[in-house]
Structures are given as C-alpha cells and as structure tokens.
C-alpha cells in the first residue's frame, strides 16, 4: 500500500522564525496518527503548512499527498482533493449562513470531480443527517458560520463540516481544546464514525485525553519542530504520566529516523 501522506525533512518558518526543523511523517490510508507536543513545538505550524497557509514558508523538504506534490497546490485545490483541516480557532463569517457556506463548498468540490451541483433537497437532507452525527442543533445551519457559537458548538461544527465534505485526510488541530467531557465525547464519536479504510486522520493535540476516545494507530511526539519519538497508544499514556520533560531528557536516544 502506498502512503497517503509522506512528509520528508520538512522545514518551515514564519516571519523568519524556523518552526519545523526536519519533520518526517508517513500516514497510510485508514490510519489515525496522533501528534502530541508541548506549546510551541510546531503542531499548529504543521497543520497550517499541510493546509497551505501562505504565511508559512517551506524552506526545505517535501510533502507528497496521494502521489502529488502537496506543497505545489493552492489551499482550495488541496481541500478539493480531500485535505480537510478542522481549525483550532474556527473563523466567524458574519452574514454568511452555514448552509450557504457549505453549499458553496460542496458544489466547488463536486465541480472539481466533474459532478453536477447537488440539488437543494438532497443537500438539505445531507445536512440534517450529518448534523445529527455530532448532535448539532439544526437551527445553527441558518445562522452565520460560527458567529455566536459557543466553543463546543464551534468544534462540533468543524466535525460536521468534515462529515459534509467527506475528505480523504482529516487534520484535527487541537479540536479537543476548550471542550468539556460531554462535548469531547460527541466530537470523538463523530470522528470515529468517519474512520474508514480509505480515510486517514492526523490528530494534533496537547493532551492524551482525546486519545482515550479516538484511539490512534500511531502516536508521535513533536518537539522543537521534529518528531522525536513515535510509538503506539502506550506512548501517549507514558507521556501523560511522565510529562514532556521526560521526553526532552530522553530525546536524543529516542529520535525515530
């Protein structure tokens, strides 16, 4: 099986500060990878670089996604080819209803695949179905995107959008932050339902908590812009027990090539 995502020696900087310093990561279809790391380790930079945010400059390395040079693609092309980023801080779009927003997005993707626009009835049905997925109140569809949503609603709405857009690679950037335990469960269940053989996830998180609900296949520890240790779920548990300092002390002999 060829890798879905293959990151090699990735270096990236923002405003002349190098954040990623030689990151390697390989994700196969069907896998769930957790990337854990302390604040400032480069977790969000990785998410943003993969999604194609302009402010981040890649200075070295390569990212191959389903055989294509991901770094050569525009953000919207990446999205249309199945890369979805659940934002750490979902953006508010005043006056743009969630329905209108998603309809534009869904149809852009269908057009990309050479399909006709989805008719309104079909679209509404899909929206209701996917909203129930994450217990999202249907009335939120009529409201402006993320405007006046609670923290939990915003995160659930991100997973709802992911379900609507049916991506190949879902990147969740600290989706667990700011969620209470009930919301965390709902969000996790939503993600678990989306797990599939042809879909992969990269979960970016600070805490092990999320991983109790979404069981990853591989856990990576990111420090100073590189993956310093990889392992199974037990690595996350160990980290939770011993803390990032423990990894830092053992980083040198723990680097995974």
């Amino acid at each position, binding site marked *: 099986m060829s890798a879905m995502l293959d990151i090699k020696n990735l270096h990236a900087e923002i405003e002349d500060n190098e954040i990623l310093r030689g990151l390697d990561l390989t994700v196969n279809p069907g896998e769930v990878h957790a990337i854990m790391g302390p604040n400032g380790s480069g977790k969000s930079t990785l998410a943003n670089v993969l*999604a*194609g945010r302009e402010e981040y400059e890649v200075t070295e390395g390569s990212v191959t996604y389903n055989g294509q040079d991901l770094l050569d693609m525009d953000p*919207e092309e990446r*999205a249309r080819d199945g890369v979805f980023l659940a934002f750490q801080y979902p953006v508010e779009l005043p*006056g743009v209803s969630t329905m209108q*927003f998603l309809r534009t*997005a869904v149809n852009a993707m269908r057009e990309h695949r050479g399909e006709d626009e989805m008719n309104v009835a079909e679209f509404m049905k899909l929206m209701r179905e996917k909203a129930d997925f994450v217990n999202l109140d249907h009335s939120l569809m009529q409201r*402006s995107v993320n405007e006046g949503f609670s923290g939990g609603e915003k995160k659930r709405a991100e997973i709802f959008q992911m379900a609507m857009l049916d991506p190949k690679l879902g990147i969740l950037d600290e989706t667990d932050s700011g969620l209470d335990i009930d919301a965390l469960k709902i969000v996790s269940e939503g993600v678990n339902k989306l797990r599939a053989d042809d879909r992969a996830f990269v979960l970016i998180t600070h805490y092990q908590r999320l991983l109790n609900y979404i069981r990853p296949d591989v856990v990576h520890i990111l420090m100073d812009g590189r993956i310093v240790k990889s392992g199974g779920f037990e690595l996350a548990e160990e980290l939770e027990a011993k803390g990032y300092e423990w990894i830092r002390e053992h980083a040198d002999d723990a680097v995974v090539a």
Partner: protein
Amino acid sequence: MPTYTEHDLIADIEKEEGGYKYGFVTETDADTIPKGLSEEVVRLISEKKGEPEWMLEWRLKAYRHVLTLLEDDEHYPRWAHLDYTEPDFQAISYYSAPGKKPKYNSLDEVDPELLETFERLGISLMEQKRLVGIEDKETMPVAVDVVMDSVSVATTFKEELAKQGIIFCSMGEAIENHPDLVREYIGSVVPYTDNFYAALNSAVFSDGSFCYIPKGVRCPMELSTYFRINAAGTGQFERTLIVCEDGGYVSYLEGCTAPMRDENQLHAAVVEIIAKEDAEVKYSTIQNWYPGNDEGVGGVYNFVTKRGICEGKRSKISWTQLETGSAVTWKYPSVILKGDDSVGEFYSVAFTKGAQQADTGTKMIHLGKRTKSTIISKGVSAGTSNNSYRGLVKINKKAEGARNFSQCDSLLLGDKCGAHTFPYIEINNSTAKVEHEATTSKVGEDQMFYCMQRGISEQDALNLIVNGFAKQILAKLPMEFAVEAQKLLSIQLEGSVG
C-alpha cells in the same frame, strides 16, 4: 444674492412658516451669458418640453442663482473627502445632454466586456439593446417591439394605478397634466438655493418621475419595473418628486443593475419626498453608473441631492441604497423629521474599487417630538478607492425624546484603499438619546483561508464574505432586486482579490 440654504429651510419648517419662501417670484437678474450654460439653453429646454410659464420662470431663477454661485469662489462644495477636478460647467452641453448615449448599429459594435456583464446579470438581449441605445429600426425590428412593449406595459400599470388615484408619470407629463401638484411641491424639500448641484439641476433638469399617492392608498406594487423602463434614456439631470398623502404607502425603486455607459460625465439628480400623516415611503436605489477605468478616467460624477420630509405625525421615510458605480459619488439622502413620532431610516451599502471615490451618508434632522432615526451604513473598499461615510444627526430644541441609532461599518479589501467615517452629531435637547457605533475591519486572511480550506475559490470566498457583510442592508431591498443586487456585488468584486 439669495443665500437661502438647507439650514434656513429647516429653520423655516421648524417655525412652521410654510417652508420655502423663494417660490415663484420673478426676478430679473440678467448676467452675462456663459458659453455652456445660458438663459437661452434653459429657455430651450423648457420650450422643448412645452412647459408652462411658471416652470420656465422657476428654472430661470435657479439658473440665475447658479450664475451668482459661479461668481463666488466658494460656490462649489469642496468639503467632501473627494479628490477630483471640478467639472467645467461651461464646457458641458446642457441642451443636447439629456438622453444622449453612444449610438450603435448592432451589438457587434458594443464593448464585449459590457455585453458579458449584461449576460451574467441575466439581462435579456432585447433589454441589452435598449440599454446600449440601439435604435436603428430597419436592422433592429426587435428593439422596436421592445419599445412598443414597454409602452404598453407602462400603460397597463398606469391604468391600474390610476384606478386608485395614484399618479405615476414622468416629470414632464406631471408638469403638463398635474401642474398644481408639481407647483405646490417642487423645490419645497430641496429648494434650488440648497446647494450648487440642486441649483444646477433646477435650472436644466431633463426629466424624472413624479409620484402621487392619495390619502389612505397603499400602492399595490413596487414602483420599479415601470421606472426601469421609464428611466432608461433620461439624462444627466433627473428630478423626482414623491408625495404621499395621509395614510398612504409606496415603495419606490430607482436605478438599474446594468452598467450604464454614458457620454455624460456629470450627473446631478434631485429627489424630493413628502410624507404626510401616517404615510410611509420606502425609496430604494441601486446605482451602477460607469466608474471609469482603473485610473478613474471617463467615469461618471454622481452628485445627488435627496431629501425627504416627514411632514405628518407618525410618518416614515426609508432610504435604502446600494452604490457601486460612478467615479465620484457625493450623496446624502436625508430626512427632516418634522411630524411628532415620525421615523427616518437610512440603509446603505457603498462599494468602491479601482480609483472610485464615494462620500455618502445621510442627515437626520429631528424637529418633532419622539422622532426616531436609524442609520446603518456599510462601506466596502477595494483597490485604491476611497469610501467615506458622512452623516449628521441633529436634534433640535423641541424634539423631546428623540432617538437615533447609527452604525457605520467599513470593510477593507487589501491595504491600498481607504475607509473614513465622519459622524456629526448636534444635540439641542437633553432628553435625546443618540447612539453611534463604528467598526472597520479588513477582510481577514483568516476568513479567506477558512473558506479556501473548504474548497471555495478565492473569488467565491470574497463574494461570500462581502455579501455577508452587506446582507443586513440587501435584505431591506425589494425581493427581486435583492437578488440582482447580490449578483451585481459579486460582479463588482471580480478582480478585487489581493
């Protein structure tokens, strides 16, 4: 020299002296006749239109006023946040100007870019031809049908409206058929001495519309379709007068979403609205005059004086506008809230791009008790354009319990454009309650990226964000025009990314 201005008008209205006092007194004040604008030209326009003597006299007085203003270095309004060369008023051809359009023999000769825009606005081929002014009867039999069609449509409407006593016709017809009404109200809200452009308009106005709603009648249709037909071909100096008697209601729509290319550089319209007791007038505008090229060359200067008076108790006047065209816009639809408990509203979206400049806003003059006004202004600037909101809220001494709420939001696309807010607030009554909110935001990289991460193109993302920003105002437009307005905004936004 007559110096009766807006301030005097308001003072008079407040004193209940019956308003405008420079009525129809004959003055003889023959100055030297300049080349472009002359007494001869004014007489010629009036004669051509077959106007009665009183109308000509009024025009001549306005004309003489223009002359006195031209002698004064301070005649020209320069206070607006606009940078352009003052038009050479003597170089303008006033007589031939009205209705003058570039003539084409077929659509093949028309700028393809313009045709594409028509196409995408969903304007029919026939209407396209009419808009660009193809009139050749032999090669264009279809266009003739359209014209005849329009006339019959107009007549049907007119008959239906007439049954209810509603008068809706061109200003020219009104002067001919309803002289008493015109004579009573013309210049009563915007006197010719009001400002330079009002004076110019009064002297040389080409045509316009007249609308009269009798007591207790609710106009059963948006006066829009007809107006679009009616408006095409009216020239630089339109003059509109709307009178709504006690308990009447009318929703009036002016303008066209199609880009109107016009040889005329200067447009100076006047709109006057009179709302009597319990009357309500909604006036919506979509303005899309040719803005010129990216340097602003060749664009239309749009200098408009629009004012309504809530004469009667509990009357209401609402202005809603979408301004997207013109090289320079200078426009402040205002409401004089004279009747107790009357209501004035101003809802505006002004979009500027390229080198466009807009200085627009409103004036809410509170004279009556418990009068209420709402101002919501949304400015969107792109390119190197400049977009200013300028608004006055004035609460006079007797306006017990008056209230105003103003909200001015600006949205910037890119970092080379400008947004400015100039609120003026004058309060002379301690019971007044006035609120003002203003925000300026840049279309965030965050918002754009968020949309694009969902597969939405940069252009569509911008459309969504800007339409979202303007939604509150667009929703105030009559339904069918709200849709056109959205499309128009999207087309305007093209090439504004970055």
